[in-house]
């Protein structure tokens, strides 16, 4: 052991580190190159291993001789301090050109040696390979087993595109906040005029009701925008007071028809915890009102979780009769219109 501890370094000779891969083969590497790998560096400093052939550092299993060669090439280049960023980038781009199989091996080996920059480089390359491919293409590229049933394949996507409960909840909450905000603003209209705020009441109403939601087509690229003259707001703003409400009832009816199987992962209790448990969000509302709002929405969330089909019917019928107003749900399950003045404008 003392032999390993006394690393004899002659000044005119480079010092080398001995590394052993899982297959038993041993090679020696210049010390500064090996030290670039955190795992090897630690081994040397903590255990004193690596200074001679008999005390070679055992590398993790995922590092085979071929991939070790690649890793050492990488280290050899990057450990030189004077290189510019441009040089390093160019090297990396050339270095990473290899077949997918090798890329995966390299990622694995770099990870086991804790060489984070190389892990990032290879991960990004693999990400680029995955992006934009169809699942079949990805499976082919990486030889992945196709071991999910059709049902299982559909489920996560269905979660993503088809959960009307969450839509409803979010919309309801957003609408309530906006209505409350609007009432506050209308109350303070005189105070508003003093501020350097050029919004008119018309504009505010438009804002609250979401405005016109038609899509404008493909985004113009940034350079084109640079040359466009800044637009002044036109005199008459489009006023879609009912726009948002129409959307609401539409969404509800479509949601009703597209009702999905309740998925076990969609727990609305979680939703309540995540979405509504924050005091900072509605800070310019009256705190009492905010409390009421929060309570009401939590109530609604609980109801929604338990008796979904009935709830749906209720809301749907209410929405179709008149403009959808926020509903207060009390214990006995019957809907009662919220009477603290929200609909009195």
């Amino acid at each position: 052991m003392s032999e390993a501890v006394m690393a004899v370094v002659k000044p005119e000779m480079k010092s080398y580190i001995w590394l052993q891969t899982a297959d038993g083969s041993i090679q020696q590497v210049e010390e500064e190159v090996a030290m670039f790998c955190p795992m090897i560096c630690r081994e040397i400093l903590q255990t004193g291993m690596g200074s001679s052939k008999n005390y070679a550092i055992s590398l993790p299993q995922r590092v085979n001789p071929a991939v070790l060669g690649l890793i050492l090439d990488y280290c050899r280049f990057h450990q030189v301090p004077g290189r510019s960023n441009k040089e390093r980038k160019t090297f990396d781009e050339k270095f990473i050109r290899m077949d997918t199989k090798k890329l995966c091996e390299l990622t694995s080996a770099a990870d086991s040696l804790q060489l984070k920059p190389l892990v990032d480089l290879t991960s990004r390359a693999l990400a680029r390979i995955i992006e934009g491919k169809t699942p079949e293409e990805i499976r082919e590229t990486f030889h992945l087993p196709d071991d999910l049933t059709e049902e299982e394949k559909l489920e996560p996507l269905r979660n993503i595109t088809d959960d009307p409960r969450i839509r409803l909840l979010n919309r309801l909450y957003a609408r309530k906040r906006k209505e409350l905000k609007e009432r506050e603003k209308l109350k303070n209209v005189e105070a508003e005029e003093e501020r350097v705020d050029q919004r008119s009441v018309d504009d505010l109403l438009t804002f609250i009701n979401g405005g016109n939601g038609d899509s404008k087509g493909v985004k113009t690229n940034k350079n084109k925008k640079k040359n466009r003259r800044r637009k002044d707001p036109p005199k008459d703003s489009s006023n879609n007071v009912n726009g948002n409400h129409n959307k609401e009832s539409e969404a509800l009816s479509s949601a009703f028809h597209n009702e999905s199987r309740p998925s076990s992962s969609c727990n609305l209790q979680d939703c309540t915890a995540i979405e509504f448990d924050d005091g900072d969000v509605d800070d310019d509302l009256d705190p009492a009102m905010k409390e009421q709002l929060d309570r009401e929405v939590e109530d609604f969330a609980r109801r929604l979780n338990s008796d979904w089909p009935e709830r749906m019917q209720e809301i749907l019928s209410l929405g179709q009769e008149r403009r959808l107003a926020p509903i207060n749900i009390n214990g006995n399950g019957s809907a009662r219109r919220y009477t603290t003045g929200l609909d009195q404008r």
Partner: protein
Amino acid sequence: MTMQMGSKTNSKPGQDRISGLPDEILCHILSFTSTVDAVKASVLSRRWENMWLRVPTLYLSDDDFRSDEREFDPERFVAFVDRALFLRGSSSIHRISIRCSDTENYPHLDEWICSAIRGNVVELELDLHESDFRYEPLELPRSLFMSRSLVVLKLTLEENYVAIPPSSDCFPCLKLLDVSVFYPDPATMESLFTCGPVLEHLIIEGYLGEDQYLNFNIFAPKLKRLELRFDPCDEVDSVSNILFNINAPKLERLDLNENFLASYCLSENALSEANISFSDLHSEDIQFITGSVDHIQKLFEGILNVKHLSLQAPFLGDPDTESRCNLPKLNNLKHLELQLENCCSWQLLTRLLTISPNLEYLVLEINIQCCEYPNEDGWSPPKLVPICLVSCLKNLFIRGFKGEPDDIEVAKYLMKHGEVLNNVTIYSCDVPAEDMLKVSQEISMFPKGSNTCQVEFPKIDM
């Protein structure tokens, strides 16, 4: 194992390399893809089924929902984001990036932002654009400013976007702020950069617009690096009044790139590196800028103590500017990189050499084509040999050497008077090999002021 119709039998054991990687690595790989791709990956195989739920990043871009086949339906993107934020749970996401090409389509955008903040996101990127004028200003939610977890924030602030910090203790943990503007709101520019008790790196870039009056107040006690990069103004003679009040006593590095010569009030700082580029700004242009002489002087006074300077400023090479501007001496300057456009290069070189008495390392990039003024000015040696040549300059690099008579004269002058020069390295540009050979031989024969001077003509530029 289910065999799908039409798919190849490709799952030989041992061939699947990527699944051998640990979960963290698979998540790491997915963290570099958009969230849509990460979710799509959940149908790849059992191993990948719920991987996206553990990826510590969310990239939500409505570009992923645009295709040539059908008209863009913003509702699909809205549904996707709502679901992704909900199912994923917004906590334990390290980085969230939201990109909307038309914010008018997403009325509850601020809900998404609040959701991210509630989940204690560490890095947030909001790349928000609009295709038409917004009727109502887009205001960033208050919780964004008060977040105790946010360390990196990247924002786009287009016309009519308002981001005024609600109180003076905003951004308590923010270290990097990168703001990209387009006709920014003046009130926002005045106050957004004043809070940031631990801000270390600030980037402001984009297009300020024409005829703008903008006051940028930058107050950041821990700021180390400031980058100000603005796209050139379209209208040549539109006048803008742009003022930067920079109070950053720990500032180490300043990067400037603009073409309207703003006024920079740099308070006492610790600058050691400055990279300044006023590309395409000639003296004919700056005469329209009131107080231009003052601006130049104030800027140089602010960067007085730099050790490393990179400069592109054609107007400084104009003899007219020279007589009106009194540039202070840069006594700490050791490393200078000059980009010399061919309209006024040599005066600029002389000027900078004169004000840098302790210069040791000089890089000249010459023969940069000036689009407006193609005439070249001639080299005439200065009356007094600059001190740095005589006593300090050790390294000289010349890039873009064309072998023109003036190029050769300058090289000759510098080598003759450079009494402590060690290395002269000349990179040629578009010169045929035989001509370069002749020129290099000629230059190597020049009288050298320094015994240790070695001249090199490398083939490849680094």
